[in-house]
C-alpha cells in the first residue's frame, strides 16, 4: 500500500507547508486583521467643515500637548500611539494630527495594547473634546479629558482623575471614581457633562456618592451639578439632572428603576409606580424575568418629561415606547419589529436611540439583528437612508451624524469584504467623499468574501447568519466550519469578523449562525434553548449545513465545529450528538459542565458580546463601545461586585426543562479529534473542567490537542498568530488528512 501512504504524506506536507511556508504571509494576515482599526470614532464638526477621527500610528510626526498645556510641541512616537486626525471635508487640506496616548504596556509581556478613546466630540465648529479610556496604574487612575482647537491652539486638560475623586475621611486618602462622559448639556455645547460614578461600600461605611459635573470646555471650570448618595446606576436627563436610577442593592435579588419626582426633597419613586397601565410592574428586574418579559428605560427625550423605554411585555421582541412622566401614561410613540429586538437587554449597554445632536429630537432607532438597520423617525433622514442604500447595494449604510444645515452626512459603510469605509455624503453636490478606510492595510483581494444568508428550517425556525468563503480552498469542495461563536445569549453576528477571515484563510467555508439561544431575535428564539438545551443550537447547525450544502459545494465529510465559552461547549456537544456529521472540534474556554460552572463562585461571563457581559461592563466601567475586538481568545471579564448577572444566568440556564449535559460525563462519545484551548488561569473552574476532560480522553486512548494561553494575553498579536497557527496545524492533521478514515457521509436530519 505504498501509494495511499505516499499520497497522505504529500498532502500533509503540502498543507503544513502552506501553513508554515506562508508563515510570514499568514502572520501578517492575522496581525493585520486584528490591528486596531482606523476611525473607531468619527465626528463631524457642527458646521460640517471638518471631521475628526481616531487612528493608531507609529513613527509619524504629530502634535502633542506639552505638560503645561500652554503650547504644542513636535512629537514623534516610534512605538505606536493613539492619534486624532482632523481633516477638512469640503476641500483637500493638510490633516492635523494630535497624539493622544502611547500604546499601553501589558504585564509580563513585551507587547503593548493599543489605547482607545472613550469620547470624541466637537463642542463648536472649531473646538474638539476627547478623552482616552481610563485605566489604573500603580500610580493611580488615568482618566483625563482634553479639549483643543482644530488648529492645535488653546489645548486644555479639562479634567484628570483627581478632579473626580473624594477624600475618604476614614482612611484619609482619596477615593478614585470611575467617570462616564454623558455628553454636552442641552443647548450648551460648551458644557460637558461628566458623571463620577459612586461605589458600594459595606455598612457602616457610607457608599461613595455619584456626582454629575459640568465642565467648561474652554476654561476647564468644573462644577458639580448634582449628587446622589445612594449606590446605583444613574441616568441624567438633558438638563443635567440625575433623574433616574437603577438600583443595585447588595442583598436583594430584585432591582428596580426609580424616578426623581420634582420637589424640594427630590423624592425617588419606583418607575412602576410612576407608570399606570396594565403592565405596571414591568420595570422590576428579577433573575427570573431578566431574560423574559419586562421593560427598562432607555433615556430621556429633549423634553425631560418624556422617557423612552424598551419593552417586550406581551410580545416576542423588544419594541421601543415612550412614557409621559406628567400624565404617567404611555404615549402613542411605538417602534416595533416582529423579528428583532430593538434594544439591548440592559439599559446603558449601547442605547438604540439616535438623537439629533443639534435639536435634541429623537430621530431614529438603531436595531442590531441579522443586518443592522436604523428605523428613522425623521422623514428626511428616512428618505436619505433609502437614497444611500441605493448608492451602496449589498452594503450596510449607517448615517452617523450630520451638520447643522444637514448638508453633509458622515456615513459608515460596511458589510463588504473589508471592515468598512467612512464617507461623507454631500447633499448639495450629490457626491460621496470617501474620507478613510477602517483597515486600509487589508486589500479586498486578500480577504475572503462574506455573504449573509437566511432561511426557514422545516420546523419553521427562521435562521440568519453569515458565510465566509475561502478564496484559496485547500481542497474542493472546501470543508465547512460551524462557528458557534459565543454560544448561548450571545448577540447577533456581524458581517465582517476577523476570526472568520482567519478560519477561511485555513481553507474553510465558515458558517456563523444566529442559532436559537442567541439574543436579539426575540423571546421565543432565545428561550428555545431553555427547554431544548444544546440539542436546539445543534439542530439549527444541522439545518444550516443542509441549507448551505443545497446552495454551495461543501465537503460533507469534513465539517468541524468551533466556539468560545458556551459556544465551545456547543462545539463539543455537537461532536457528541452528531458524530457522523462533525469531524472535529476546537472549543476555547468552554465550560464543560455548565451547571457546575454556574455554581458559586460566580462566573458571569458568557462570552464577549453577550448581553450579560455588556450589562456588567456597563455598570463597572465606561469602556468604549467599539473597544471589543472580535477574536477567539478575548479576555474574560472579572466577576462583578454583585451577583445579579450570575443569578440571571442560573435562572435562564437552569430554569427551563432542559438538562445541560456535562461533556465529560459522556467522554466516551467524543471519538473525534478535539483541540482544547484555554485562556484562563489554572485555578479557574473552566480550566479544571478542561483538565478533567483531557484526563478522561487520554485514558480513553484519544488524547486531545491542548493549548494553554496565558490568561489575558490572547489578544496580543504574537500570541494570536501562534494560536491560529496551531489551530491550523490541528486541522491539517485531523481534517485535511486523507489518511484518516472519514466515514460514510450520512444525510443530515
Amino acid at each position, binding site marked *: 500500500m505504498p501509494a495511499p501512504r505516499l499520497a497522505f504524506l504529500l498532502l500533509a506536507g503540502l498543507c503544513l507547508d502552506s501553513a508554515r511556508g506562508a508563515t510570514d504571509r499568514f502572520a501578517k494576515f492575522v496581525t493585520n486583521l486584528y490591528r486596531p482599526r482606523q476611525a473607531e470614532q468619527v465626528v463631524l464638526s457642527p458646521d460640517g467643515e471638518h471631521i475628526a477621527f481616531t487612528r493608531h500610528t507609529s513613527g509619524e510626526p504629530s502634535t502633542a500637548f506639552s505638560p503645561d498645556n500652554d503650547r504644542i510641541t513636535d512629537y514623534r512616537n516610534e512605538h505606536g500611539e493613539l492619534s486624532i486626525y482632523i481633516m477638512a471635508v469640503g476641500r483637500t487640506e493638510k*490633516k492635523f494630527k494630535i497624539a493622544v496616548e502611547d500604546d499601553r504596556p501589558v504585564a509580563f509581556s513585551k507587547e503593548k495594547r493599543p489605547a482607545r478613546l472613550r469620547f470624541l466630540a466637537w463642542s463648536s465648529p472649531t473646538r474638539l473634546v476627547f478623552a482616552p479610556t481610563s485605566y489604573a496604574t500603580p500610580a493611580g487612575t488615568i482618566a483625563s479629558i482634553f479639549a483643543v482647537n482644530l488648529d492645535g491652539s488653546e489645548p486644555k486638560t479639562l479634567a484628570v482623575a483627581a478632579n473626580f475623586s473624594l477624600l475618604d475621611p476614614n482612611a484619609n486618602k482619596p477615593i478614585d471614581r470611575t467617570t462616564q462622559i454623558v455628553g454636552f448639556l442641552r443647548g450648551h455645547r460648551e458644557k460637558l457633562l461628566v458623571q463620577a460614578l459612586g461605589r458600594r461600600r459595606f455598612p457602616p461605611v457610607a457608599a461613595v456618592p455619584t456626582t454629575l459635573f459640568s465642565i467648561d470646555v474652554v476654561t476647564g471650570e468644573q462644577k458639580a451639578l448634582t449628587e446622589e448618595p445612594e449606590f446605583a446606576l444613574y441616568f441624567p436627563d438633558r438638563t443635567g439632572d440625575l433623574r433616574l436610577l437603577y438600583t443595585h442593592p447588595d442583598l436583594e435579588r430584585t432591582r428596580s428603576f426609580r424616578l426623581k419626582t420634582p420637589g424640594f426633597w427630590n423624592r425617588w419613586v419606583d418607575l412602576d409606580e410612576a407608570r399606570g397601565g396594565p403592565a405596571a410592574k414591568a420595570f422590576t428586574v428579577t433573575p427570573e424575568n431578566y431574560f423574559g418579559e419586562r421593560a427598562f428605560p432607555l433615556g430621556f427625550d429633549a423634553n425631560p418629561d418624556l422617557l423612552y423605554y424598551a419593552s417586550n411585555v406581551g410580545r416576542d421582541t423588544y419594541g421601543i415606547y415612550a412614557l409621559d412622566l406628567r400624565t404617567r401614561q404611555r404615549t402613542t410613540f411605538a417602534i416595533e419589529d416582529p423579528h428583532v429586538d430593538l434594544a439591548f437587554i440592559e439599559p446603558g449597554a449601547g442605547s438604540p436611540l439616535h438623537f439629533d445632536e443639534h435639536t435634541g429630537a429623537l430621530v431614529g432607532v438603531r436595531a442590531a439583528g441579522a443586518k443592522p438597520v436604523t428605523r428613522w423617525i425623521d422623514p428626511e433622514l428616512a428618505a436619505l437612508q433609502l437614497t444611500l442604500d441605493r448608492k451602496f*447595494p*449589498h452594503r450596510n449604510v449607517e448615517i452617523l451624524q450630520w451638520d447643522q444645515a444637514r448638508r453633509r452626512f458622515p456615513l459608515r459603510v460596511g458589510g463588504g469584504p473589508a471592515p468598512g469605509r467612512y464617507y461623507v455624503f454631500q447633499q448639495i453636490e450629490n457626491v460621496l467623499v470617501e474620507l478613510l478606510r477602517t483597515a486600509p492595510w487589508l486589500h479586498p483581494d486578500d480577504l475572503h468574501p462574506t455573504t449573509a444568508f437566511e432561511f426557514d428550517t422545516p420546523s419553521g425556525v427562521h435562521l440568519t447568519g453569515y458565510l465566509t468563503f475561502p478564496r484559496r480552498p485547500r481542497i474542493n469542495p472546501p470543508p465547512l466550519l460551524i462557528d458557534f461563536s459565543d454560544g448561548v445569549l450571545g448577540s447577533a453576528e456581524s458581517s465582517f469578523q476577523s476570526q472568520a477571515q482567519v478560519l477561511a484563510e485555513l481553507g474553510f467555508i465558515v458558517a456563523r449562525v444566529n442559532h436559537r439561544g442567541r439574543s436579539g431575535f426575540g423571546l421565543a428564539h432565545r428561550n428555545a434553548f431553555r427547554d431544548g438545551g444544546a440539542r436546539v443550537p445543534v439542530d439549527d447547525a444541522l439545518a444550516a449545513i443542509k441549507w448551505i450544502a443545497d446552495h454551495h459545494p461543501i465537503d460533507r465529510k469534513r465539517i468541524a465545529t468551533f466556539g468560545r465559552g458556551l459556544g465551545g461547549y456547543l462545539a463539543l456537544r455537537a461532536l457528541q450528538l452528531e458524530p457522523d456529521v462533525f469531524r472535529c472540534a476546537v472549543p476555547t474556554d468552554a465550560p464543560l459542565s455548565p451547571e457546575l460552572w454556574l455554581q458559586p463562585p460566580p462566573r458571569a461571563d458568557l462570552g464577549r458580546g453577550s448581553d450579560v457581559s455588556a450589562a456588567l461592563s456597563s455598570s463597572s466601567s465606561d469602556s468604549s463601545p467599539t473597544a471589543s475586538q472580535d477574536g477567539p481568545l478575548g479576555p474574560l471579564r472579572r466577576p462583578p461586585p454583585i451577583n445579579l448577572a450570575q443569578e440571571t444566568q442560573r435562572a435562564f440556564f437552569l430554569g427551563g426543562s432542559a438538562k445541560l449535559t456535562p461533556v465529560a460525563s459522556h467522554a466516551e462519545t467524543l471519538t473525534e479529534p478535539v483541540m482544547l484551548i484555554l485562556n484562563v488561569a489554572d485555578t479557574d473552574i473552566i480550566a479544571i473542567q478542561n483538565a478533567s476532560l483531557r484526563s478522561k480522553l487520554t485514558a480513553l486512548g484519544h488524547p486531545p490537542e491542548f493549548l494553554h494561553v496565558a490568561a489575558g494575553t490572547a489578544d496580543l498579536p504574537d500570541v494570536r498568530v501562534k494560536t491560529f497557527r496551531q489551530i491550523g496545524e490541528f486541522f491539517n492533521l485531523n481534517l485535511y488528512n486523507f489518511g484518516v478514515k472519514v466515514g460514510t457521509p450520512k444525510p443530515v436530519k
Partner: protein
Amino acid sequence: MNAILPRLPVLLLALGAGAWAAESVPRPPDRIIELPPMTITDTIDAVPWLYVSVGDTEFLSRCSREITREFITTQLEIHHTLRDVIPPEFLATTAIPRVFLLLPIEHSNIRDDAVLRAMVADASRPTPRGVIPFDDKHSKPSLFERVLFLPNQRLEDRDTMAAFTFLKESNFASDRMIVAPDYVRSLLARRTPMLPQWLIEGLTLLYQQTIIRAGPAAVVPGNWISPEDTVGLRNSPDNRRVLLSCEELFAVDALIGPDHQHPTREIVWRLQAALFVRWALDHANTRGSDVLWKLADRVSREPMTEKILIEYFGLGYSDLLERLSDYLPNAVKYSAGLSLKPTPDLLLFEITPATKFQIARLRGEWERLEIPFVRAHHPKFLPHYIDRARLTFRRAIALGGRDPQFLASFGLCELDAGDIPAALPSLEAAMAAKVFRPRVYFEVARLRMDALARHTPKDQQFSPGQLQPILEPLHTAIGQSPPLPEVYILAMDAWLRCQEPTPPGELTMLVEAAPLFRRHPGFALRLALLQIKNGQRTAAAATLTTGLQFLGEPSARSRYQQALAGLAAPTATP
C-alpha cells in the same frame, strides 16, 4: 493678421481641431464671433491644389507635396493608434469618405479683411424680423475687430464629416498631432448600436491621457476634480476622494435632473467614467482589456446593470466603487502601460494634382457644411457663406460637373440654404444616379412626405401606393451606411399613417433595427405605436419597457410611461 496668429494652437489636431482649439486657445474678450474659415479665395490660384484619396478620407491640400505627405502619413498613424486604443468596432464608420482641407497659413489669409468688411457691413444693416440682432452699437471693440475666423474646424453632417486646417509649413511638427478629443467623442457617439454616455466620456478622456506616439503606449497620470485634490492624492493615498456611486456612474440619468447637475458632480462623473475605463484596461486589475470591450458591446445593446458588471468583472457596484477608490491615488500618480499591437504597414497613397471637379466637390462640401453652423451661431453672416458655397458649386456645374456625389452635395447645400425647389432636382438626380449618401434619400423622402401631408388633416391616412415614393428612398437609405435613426423614424411615421397594416417583413426590419438606437428617445416610442397599430400590444409593451431602461430624460420617460399606462388600461370594447 499678426494679431490672429498667436491664437493658432501650437498643437495641430487631426480631424476636428476646432473644438480643441476653442478650449485651448486663451478665450478672447467677450462676444468674440468665431466664424468658420472663409479664406479660399482665388488670389492664390498660382499655388496648385493637391488631391489624395486614402482609406476613408479625401484630402485637398494647398500645402507643399512634402508637408502634405507628412501630414497625411501622420493622420493615418494616429488614426491607426486610435483604433488600437479603442477597437474599431466601437467607433462609428461611414461609407462616405470624409473630407479634409489643408491650407498653408503662409499663403493664406485667415482673416480676409475685404471679405470681412463686406460681411460686417451686411451684418450691421437693420435687422429683419425674426433675426437676433447684434448689440454692438455701444460695445468695444467693434464688430469688425471681434470677428475671428477659426484656424481649425471640424463640421459634421448626419452621414459625413469634413475638417479644415491651416498649417504653418515652416515649423510643422507632425509628432505633435493627435486625434482631437471631440472627434473621438463624435466617433463614439455616432456608433451603432449606440454606446452609453459614461463609456463615451470615459473612452474620450482616457484617449486624451494616452501617449501613443513617443515610446511605448501609456496612459499618463490623470487629474482629479481640482488641482488640490490631484496633488493631495499624489502626496497621500489617504487624501479625500470625491466619488459617485457606481449606480449613479452608470445611470442613464447621471447628469439629468435638478439633483444631478451640480458642477462638482458633473466633473466627478466624467473623471470617474475615465477612471473606470482606465482601471478596466489596466491588466493589473482585471482579467484583461477584453473584458471591458465585451462589457462595452453588451451595454450598447442592454442597459448597464450590477448583474452585468458582476458577470464580466466579478464585482458588484459597491465592490467596484471601492476598487476605483483604491485605484485613484495610483491613477493620478503613475502612468499605466498599454499593450498595443504593432503598427501594420500604413496604406499607400498617391498625391496627384486635384482636378477642378475634385476641388469644387471638396471645397463645396466644406462650404456647404459651414452653412448650418453659421445659421446656428451667427445667422447675420449666413448670406455670405451661402453665396460662397453656391458660387463654388455653380462654377463646377458650369464646367459640366455631374458627378452623383457632387450633385448630392449641391442638393444638400441648397437644402441647408433653405431653397427646397433648387435642392430637389439635384437630390433626385443624385438619387437616380444611385449615390451612396443616406441623407440624400432621407431628405427626398422627407420632402415627399411633407408634400403628401400638406393640406391634409393630421389623422389623414394614406394608401400604400401614396406612401411608396416615400418608403422607397428610405429603404435605399436603410441599406447604406451609416444607419440613421431618422430614416427609420420617418419610415415608421409613414407606416403609422398608412391605411393598411404594416407588412410583417417591414415591421420585423424595424424591430430588428431597434437595438441600434436604444438610446434614441423617439425610436422605441414610434416602434411601439406602430406595433400597437398592428395589434401587437404585448410586443409594444416590451418595446416601451426596454426603451424606458435606456432613457434618463424626464419628458421622454414620461411619454413612454404614458404609453405604457395606456397599454395597461383595458381596451374599450365596441
